[in-house]
C-alpha cells in the first residue's frame, strides 16, 4: 500500500506496529527466561521476569493510548482501521501472554525451593514450541503475512497434545510421592500457563488474518486441549 498523503499518519501507524513488535519480543523473552529459570532452578532470573512484566503492561497502555488518539484524530478506515483494531486486540493478548509467563516465573521460584523430583524436559519443550509461535506470529504481523499467520494459527494442536500428556504425567508423579504434590501442583499450572500463552498466540494469528484479509479464518479451530477431561488413578488401589 502506498504512503498516506499526510506523512504523520504513517508515522503514527508505524509507531503502533513498533510497539506491538516490542511487546512480542518481550513476551517471547519472558517466556524463554521463565522456562530457563524453571529448568535451571534460577530464582534470580525468575524474579527478573516477574519485574519485567511491568514493561509489558506499560507498553499495552501505550498501545491503547496511541490507538485511541489515532481513532479520535485520524478517523482511520479500511486497512488503517483494521490495523488499529488489530493492534488493540493483539496488545491485549500479548499482555496476557506476558502475565502468564510472569506466573510461570513466580512458580519457578516456589518450585526451586522443593527437591528436584520431576523431569522438566516436557515443559521446557512446550515452552520452546510456544516461544517459536510467538516469534513467527510477530513476524507475520510485521510482514502483514496472512499465510504465515495461518501457519501459526494451525500449529496450536501440538501444544495442546503436549499439555494433555504433561497433565497426565504430573498427576502420576503426585501419586507416586506426596512430596511431589506441591511442586507438581505448581507445574500443572506452569504447563497450563504455557498452553494458554499458545491460545493467546492463536488469537494473535487470527487478528493478523483479519487485518490482512478483512475476515477471520474460516474453519472451526480445534481449540481446547483435553486435560480438563483427563483422569489418572493411583497405581495401588486401596479398595
Amino acid at each position, binding site marked *: *500500500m*502506498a*504512503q*498516506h*498523503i*499526510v506523512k504523520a*499518519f504513517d508515522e503514527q501507524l508505524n509507531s503502533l506496529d513498533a510497539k506491538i513488535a516490542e511487546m512480542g519480543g518481550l513476551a517471547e523473552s519472558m517466556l524463554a527466561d521463565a522456562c530457563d529459570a524453571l529448568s535451571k532452578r534460577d530464582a534470580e532470573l525468575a524474579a527478573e521476569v516477574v519485574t519485567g512484566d511491568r514493561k509489558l503492561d506499560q507498553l499495552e497502555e501505550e498501545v491503547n493510548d496511541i490507538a485511541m488518539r489515532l481513532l479520535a484524530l485520524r*478517523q*482511520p*478506515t*479500511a*486497512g*488503517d*482501521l*483494521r490495523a488499529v483494531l488489530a493492534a488493540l486486540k493483539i496488545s491485549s493478548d500479548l499482555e496476557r501472554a506476558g502475565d502468564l509467563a510472569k506466573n510461570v516465573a513466580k512458580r519457578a521460584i516456589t518450585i526451586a525451593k522443593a527437591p528436584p523430583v520431576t523431569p522438566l524436559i516436557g515443559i521446557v519443550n512446550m515452552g520452546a514450541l510456544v516461544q517459536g509461535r510467538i516469534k513467527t506470529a510477530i513476524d507475520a504481523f510485521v510482514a502483514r503475512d496472512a499465510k504465515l499467520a495461518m501457519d501459526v494459527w494451525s500449529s496450536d494442536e501440538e501444544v495442546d497434545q503436549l499439555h494433555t500428556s504433561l497433565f497426565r504425567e504430573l498427576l502420576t508423579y503426585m501419586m507416586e510421592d506426596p512430596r511431589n504434590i506441591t511442586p507438581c501442583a505448581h507445574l500443572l499450572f506452569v504447563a497450563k500457563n504455557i498452553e494458554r500463552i499458545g491460545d493467546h498466540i492463536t488469537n494473535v494469528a487470527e487478528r493478523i488474518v483479519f487485518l490482512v484479509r*478483512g*475476515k477471520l479464518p474460516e474453519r472451526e479451530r480445534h481449540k481446547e486441549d483435553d486435560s480438563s477431561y483427563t483422569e489418572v488413578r493411583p497405581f495401588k488401589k486401596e479398595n
Partner: protein
Amino acid sequence: MRNMSVVDRTRTGVSATSPEPDSGATAAPPKPNAFECKRVEVYYGQKRGLNGVSLDIGKGEVTALIGPSGCGKSTFIRCLNRMNDPIPGCRVVGSILLDGMDVNAPDVDPVELRARVGMVFQKPNPFPKSVWENVAYGPRIHGLANSKAELDEVVERSLRRAALFDEVKDRLHEPGTSLSGGQQQRLCIARALAVDPEVILMDEPCSALDPIATAKIEELIDELSGNYTIVIVTHSMQQAARVSDMTAFFHLGDLVETGPTDTIFTTPRDERTEGYITGRFG
C-alpha cells in the same frame, strides 16, 4: 437506514456490472431498484466524461457517490434527472431506467421527470419569495392541489417531512432567504418533497453548512430513507459513511467499486477505493 441495527446492515453487494445473488438459504428477496443504469457514457463534445457506468440504485436506499474532483460523480447524478440536457454539446449514451422507464426517451417530459426525481444543490437556492410560496410553487404548477386549503396542507406536510415546520411555522410568510443556511437547505428539501417525488438527488447538500446544520440534514436523510430513494454526491467521505446504505466510488470517469457502505469503509475490494478513502492517493 436509521431503523436498521448495525449488524443487520449486511446488504447484498450490488456489483458494478451485475448484481450477485446472496448465497445460501437465508438470501433476502432481491430489492427493487429505483434506477437501473447500464453502460452510461457522457460526452461533452468529443470529450468523454463518463466511461460506461452500470449502476443500480435500490429503492428507498441512500446511495452515496464519492470520488475526487472530476471523477464523474456529479456528471452521473445529473444524468438521473436530465440536468445535463441544457449543457450545449452534452450527449448521454447508454440506458437509464427509472422504474423501467427510459428517462432519455423522446416522450419523457424533463419537467415531469424532475418532479419525480427532485434535486437539492450545494448552495441552498430558495426562490426570492416567502417560505410558504417556496413550497407551494411546485404543487401549484403540477396541479397537485386545487385550493388554498389544500396547498396549506401540502406546505405543512412537506415542511414537517423536511423537519422544518416547527422552526418556521410562525415565519411562513417571511422570505425563504431570511432563514439560516441549514434551514434554507431544509426548505429546498421541503420544496422537492412537495411534488411527491420518488427520488431525491443531492449534490453536496452540506458543503456550505456547519456541523450542526449538517447533522440535521443527515438526520433528515435518515428519516426520509425508506420512503424516498436518495442519491447523494459528497466530497466528504465521512458524510458518505454516515448517511448512506450503498457507496459508489468513481475515479477518472469510471465506476471503480460499489457495495454496502460498511463494506466499502471497512474492507473495500479495489486498491484505488482503499487509497481514496484512507487518504493515500497522490
